[in-house]
């Protein structure tokens, strides 16, 4: 067990943002495609 916990929070934040942006973005794309016609 290491003495100090590695400071890797920025990678986690980036990953969570990437996942949320892609999922919300695709949901918006589908909604716009449905509304278009």
């Amino acid at each position, binding site marked *: 067990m290491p003495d100090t*916990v590695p400071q890797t929070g920025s*990678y986690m934040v980036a990953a969570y943002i990437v996942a949320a942006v892609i*999922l919300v973005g*695709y949901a918006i794309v589908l909604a716009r495609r449905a509304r278009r016609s």
Partner: protein
Amino acid sequence: MTTGRIGRWMTVIGLLLLAVVYVRALKFTPLEASQGLAQKIFYVHVPAAWSAMLAMGLVGLASILFLFLRDERYDRFAAASAEVGTVFCLIMLMTGPLWARPVWGTWWTWDARLTLTLMLFFIFIGYQLLRGVIPESALRAQYAAVVGICGLVLLPFIHLSVYFFRTLHPQPIILKPSAPSAPPEMVTTLLMSFGVFTLLYIGFVVQRYALGTEGRVDA
């Protein structure tokens, strides 16, 4: 309520539950001491991988059914599942390196699991490209079905690659013959995330399938 609207509501609920999973992962799930917060990427990366593989598995099964039964509903479902699977595969491929960089010291390595996963992404992309370039619908469905079956065949190799080859990638935590090798709080959060990503997959596919049946996209 139309099918598309049902899918939209499932997606909205799924996105709200994703926020709940984020909060649970950050506040109510223990910190892994050797990796720090980067370990929590696992709660997004693994369920995204599950959804991508579920999507390709169903593309393959629908493709087999289409080739046997010639029912175009299976082809439309395969097209919907492939598009949604591409989204989850992209999340998997983007979150994986964000975990690998602090833990392995490199963004990417050409080992069996990662390379086969990249091949899965290329099959998803190839499937969409193929559908885009063939104007004749019967021929398009036939060729796409063959690509879909190739994707299905790839899945067991991806899952078992960590056993067959020397690889940096961790072995399965849940989908393995023995009990889960993580504390119960971590397993609960992971299972919640699996549920949310599966709900999002279903919500997206229902919406995308409805677009295909209503002729709003080239199925």
